[in-house]
């Protein structure tokens, strides 16, 4: 009887321990609990936000000027290359206590945006999201993004004044909840101060500082995160970068290309080697003829030089592309180009008929930079296909 009771007690003890202890031997390390997204290890640079649990980081392919970190509850942290950080707070929720005061809070829904960063319009358009844009800093005729111009004609998007002197009353009347500016606004600090004083957060986008041209296109994902349309943004981006799968392994043709313009004072301007147009030439399989032209700070695009210096290099370049935008616009024929400088007639590219031009519509189309890469590739290889941005001088 006693043995039976002892056996029962021993078995009971054993099973009790088993239920409590998980069945492990005391000196074995505890098995790791099943990993859940909520407990995934945060990368070293993911900010620790009090009260928020890290979930994941946005995967990027080319962009280096932003990172997006996701946290439980729909919170998103945007870390931008200039050091400014933003926390997107979902609708109906509060910003976490103890959030660093330098982090700007963007409260969703962000659907009444004043868009003064012109590069962003094509990205919002590409993900069918012009409905979140309330005002812009360009008038309808100045947009080459057709849907944006049409929306302005219909009165769905209003002109809110130039970025350097916005109409603050219209911003207030339109209940703007976010102002997206580009780095030009840094020259007008009074505007930033005034917009923020009116209770509208200012987001400065740094897509122009992306070293890879498709990094600029990838900013569509950040904008998608702002308005909870990540899936659309991802789908658009993946479609746009398909060209890279085709040409990434394409051997460089070794042919030289120069993108230039002649300004009103007769000086030549070429793209610096760090500029995204110069990178496009390299990616598409060419060599930037002015690769020796470098500048100290990123973000700079054009470099002035005398015609003499320009001619010394351009005379032997295989392909010339004239930048016919802004004050150099309207040069859509070879005659008009040669009026700017007779020296061009002696250039190899002109003699061989390899002289092209690119219009101002390119610079608003961050969504179509892959098309420009494809254009330059076709120009270099002679492949058949319709050009999107490049036009050949006849």
């Amino acid at each position: 009887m006693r043995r039976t009771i002892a056996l029962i007690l021993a078995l009971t003890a054993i099973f009790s321990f088993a239920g409590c202890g998980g069945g492990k031997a005391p000196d074995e390390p505890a098995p790791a609990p099943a990993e859940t997204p909520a407990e995934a290890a945060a990368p070293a640079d993911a900010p620790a936000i009090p009260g928020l649990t890290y979930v994941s980081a946005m995967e990027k392919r080319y962009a280096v000027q932003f990172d997006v970190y996701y946290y439980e509850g729909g919170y998103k942290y945007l870390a931008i290359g200039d050091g400014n950080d933003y926390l997107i707070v979902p609708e109906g929720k509060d910003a976490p206590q103890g959030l660093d005061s330098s982090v700007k809070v963007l409260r969703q829904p962000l659907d009444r945006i004043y868009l003064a960063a012109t590069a962003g319009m094509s990205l919002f358009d590409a993900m069918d999201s012009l409905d979140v844009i309330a005002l812009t800093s360009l008038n309808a005729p100045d947009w080459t993004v057709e849907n944006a111009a049409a929306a302005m004609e219909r009165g769905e998007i209003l002109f809110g004044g130039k970025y350097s002197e916005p109409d603050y009353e219209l911003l207030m009347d339109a209940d703007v909840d976010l102002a997206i500016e580009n780095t030009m606004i840094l020259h007008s600090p009074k505007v930033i101060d005034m917009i923020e004083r009116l209770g509208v957060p200012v987001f400065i986008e740094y897509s122009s500082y992306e070293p890879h041209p498709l990094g600029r296109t990838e900013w569509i994902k950040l904008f998608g995160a702002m308005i909870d349309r990540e899936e659309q943004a991802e789908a658009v981006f993946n479609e746009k970068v398909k060209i890279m799968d085709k040409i990434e392994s394409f051997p460089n043709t070794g042919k030289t290309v120069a993108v230039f313009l002649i300004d009103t004072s007769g000086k030549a301007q070429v793209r610096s080697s760090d500029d995204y147009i110069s990178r496009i030439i390299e990616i598409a399989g060419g060599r930037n003829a002015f690769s020796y032209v470098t500048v100290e700070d990123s973000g700079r695009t054009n470099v002035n030089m005398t015609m003499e210096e320009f001619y010394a290099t351009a005379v032997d370049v295989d392909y010339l592309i004239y930048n016919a935008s802004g004050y150099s616009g309207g040069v859509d024929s070879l005659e008009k180009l040669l009026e700017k400088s007779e020296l061009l007639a002696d250039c190899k590219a002109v003699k061989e008929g390899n002289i092209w031009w690119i219009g101002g519509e390119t610079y608003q189309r961050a969504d179509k930079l892959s098309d420009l890469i494809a254009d330059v590739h076709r120009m270099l290889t002679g492949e058949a296909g319709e050009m999107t941005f490049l036009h050949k001088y006849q």
Partner: protein
Amino acid sequence: MEENNRIPNSNFRRRARYEAVFIGLLLAAAVIIVLNINIGSVPIPIRDIARVLFTRRGDVSQVNIIWKIRMPRILTAALLGGALALSGFLLQTFFSNPIAGPFVLGISHGAKMVVALAMIYFLSVFGYMSSFVLVAAAFLGSMLATGFILLMSRRIPNMSTLLVAGIMVGYICNAVTDFVVTFAQDSDIVNLRGWSLGSFSGMSWENVRTAAIMTLLTAGLVFLMAKPISAYQLGENYARSMGVNIKLFRFALIMLSSVLSATVTAFAGPISFVGIAVPHLIKRFLNTSRPIVVIPACFLGGGVFCMMCDLIARTAFAPLELNISTVTSVFGAPVVIVMMLKRQKERSHG
């Protein structure tokens, strides 16, 4: 006997004229303030405006528009317009030159030079420039130019020569600015041109407070100098004989005028023609150059003129905003031309 009766009559008429001008200016100021509050890109019903003004309650966007956008702007335009007109009057008196204006001594060029340097330095090193830095840079540049002028005024007793020296200081500052801009990327100084045309956009209540302290204090000091200015108008020798310390007087006049125009430049950028045109208009209306009357009238008149021009600048082509100097030039330049023609006519008849 009749002559004695005529003198009180002329005094009475003169005083009546002064009163009429001041009442007219005050009425004009009231009307323009009301118009400025009522007119803008966003139409707001008058009863809503009144509710916001007197109770600070109402639709959030309406409260913001009236209290954070329109009111600070109106008050800044009034204060800085008055400062410019007063500065112009002082310099026209000092140089006995009808086209001497607040920026003839190179103040605006000095401000632009330092603002350009600040833009290039701060944006390339820090990637950002705050409004405080912009305001401080403009003020510093203005006072640097003033410092040069004061140094030169100790060695140059002749007023015309000093005026030329001031213009030369302006040219030097312009040359330095152009030199620096040559090496700068266009994007670094893209808004320098816009700044140099002036604007009252984006003014805050803090700007109003600072501008009010600086301009009203300085204007008060100018008013206290009405008597020595009045003596100086009759000639340096006469002023000296009346006990005016000419050296100290010159220093004070240049300094006060420069502080007034430096304050304007710091907050709103250089604004042309207000300082040249308004003193002439005021003297014509009052039919006198007596400082004790002209000083307050100039301040009031400058405020009215600037508020009117700013209303046009921000509403004529809204939401696009004209630079304030564009509008003040359109209205101010004809005044200067008419004044010059009348002066020529008087000289030829004299």
